[in-house]
């Protein structure tokens, strides 16, 4: 089986061709090592970084941007989003703080993408 992908690792956007013969996966078209790795993964199990926002309370900000600390299987993105949309967290929070540990058993943590100060009432 032969498939074509656009590499999304960097802005160059190489067109990768992935060929499978006798359980041997061969990637061509990549200009760097990262493309090789991406092509293999994209062929076997596509993975994506997930970014979105969650509700935050006790701050001037109403939403906290979050990012997955690693890649999540593409087919599980929707499920992860739903979990995050149910969430409401409290300020303060620091960049990198874990918002959800091991989201949907993917083994990946969702972390705060920025710090948010609490609202100071004076």
């Amino acid at each position, binding site marked *: 089986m032969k498939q074509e992908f656009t590499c999304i690792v960097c802005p160059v956007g190489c067109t990768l061709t992935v060929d499978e013969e006798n359980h041997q996966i061969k990637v061509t078209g990549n200009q760097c090592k990262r493309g090789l790795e991406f092509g293999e993964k994209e062929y076997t199990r596509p993975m994506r970084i997930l970014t979105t*926002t*969650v*509700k935050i309370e006790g701050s001037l900000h109403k*939403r906290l941007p979050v990012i997955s600390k690693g890649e999540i299987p593409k087919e599980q993105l929707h499920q992860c989003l739903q979990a995050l*949309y149910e969430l*409401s967290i409290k300020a303060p929070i620091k960049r990198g703080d874990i918002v959800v540990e091991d989201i949907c058993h993917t083994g990946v943590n969702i972390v705060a993408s920025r710090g948010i100060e609490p609202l100071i009432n004076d």
Partner: protein
Amino acid sequence: MKNKILKAIQSHEELAHYTIHIELSKEGIVTLRGEVDQWQHVVDIGHIAAKVKGIKNVVNDITVKGITIPKKDRSEEIRKVKASGHVRTCDVVIIGAGITGCAIARALSKYQLDIIVVDKNSDIAEGATKANNGNIHPGLIAKPGTLKAKLNIKGNAMYTKWAEELHFACNRTGSLGVVYHQSEWYLLKLLQFMKITRLGYLFKPLRQAMKVPGLKWLSGQEVQKLEPHIEGKPCGALLMTTMAIVEPYDVCLALAENAVMNGVSYMLDTEVIDVLTEHGQVKGVMTDKEVIRSKYVINCAGVYADHIAEMAGDRFYTIHPRRGAIAIFDKSRKGYFNRPLVSFSRTRGKKQHSKGGGACMTPEGNLLWGPTAKEIPDKEDKSVERTDMDYIHALGNHVTTNVKPSEIITFFAGVRAADYKEDFIISMSEKVDGFIHVAGIQSPGLASAPAIAEMVEDMIKKDQGCLHKNVHYNPIRKPRGKFRHMSHQEQDALIQKNPLYGHVICRCELITEGEIVDAIHGLIPATTLDAVKRRTRSGMGRCQGGFCGPKVLQILARELHKEPIEITLKGSNSYVLQKDNRR
């Protein structure tokens, strides 16, 4: 007479094949029925009939194959309002909060009258007023002998006092009608001769020009000295010194605020669904919310004036909507021209059913091109088409080719409320006592507004016999300082007094939160994004609200104690946000 009309229609080749039914009342009102292929033909036939001698006005019910303009069935609403039993009483109901309605409201507030202005829109001036180019015409182009011609010259002169009392910007810059051909310059000079010798009074088409004050004849060189950026080498120009330029919305707001100061009530978001009459006497109106009983009902409903007249049982004219589009340029062209310019040259400006149409500078310093003039079937159709922009571009190019369309920051359209006589209809109804028509108000409606108001005031005074003065009447509406026009010292002082003025919301136009909050809590409260924009100019600059829009929306929500999702762009269902994304 019927035959005369038929003959006149049939003399036009493209109209000859239509079957048109004509009815004629003894008062000289023609009603036209039939079906034609295109809208322009409906309008043409209406105009032809109106021109026949002895015809007072035209009710045009001709339809176009394939176009149905649905008429709202109000019976259910009427039943509901009746059932609700909500009734209030006043002396005068004014339908329509445009420039005419607001001017009349203010004029009548001099007397002990309980006045209510109703408008179906969420803000004043939402109709033709807000889409006007702000030219206070000198009255040269109006057809001699018309009501327009008379009220235009009179109204123009009255603007000086209005501006003094109400404190709006009114730049009496004069305007230039420029000619580019020697032969046309001779014609202009001939007009001068006619004016000086007063011989022009002998020729009907020249009579209006004889009455317009402040005309001056300038040589080509003088024109170039006054307007260094004007296109090419003009042969000369007619300087009409009485031309003034205003921000139409500001004028309307000033009138409305002053009216409120003097006791007038405004009911916005309120649509008249019926006019109440009994035995040939008006008894008030029914709105979509309640019944308002009154002695007088003044119909200033713009493009809907004919519908309101029909509700009162006195329909003797049809309003055919004529759309006008305008383009506004970036302020970087500030001072490019000093006064409104229009080309009188035939090869440059193709004559159309439009007043003026050219280039001018708004009081705030935006170059403005337009308006266009296009007959349209739908009264609500405020779209701008490519053909409009082509026409606007041509208008602009008549006086300058250095300004490029890429400098345009916005374009929009308004709809003029033209009747088939192409004149103002200002009269007490002959069928329903107390119902006053103020219809067919199109250009020069803005210039004529003070005179129209005075005329209606006199009409009610005469009808009533005697009116008691409102002893608290105050014609002065204090100016509201505009932050952007102040010195840095004045700005600092203002911020020290109220820190909200220290927070810039609209960067393009330098509008502060203080001004926005003032607008929201003003005498005519701004409750929508567009209303805030028109009062403060927030969002009128080159980014067109991209940056300040969300901020103004937040301020509106906060000040009106509403959720952001409840805030609209311009009333009705024009919500900006659909829902909170995490609830």
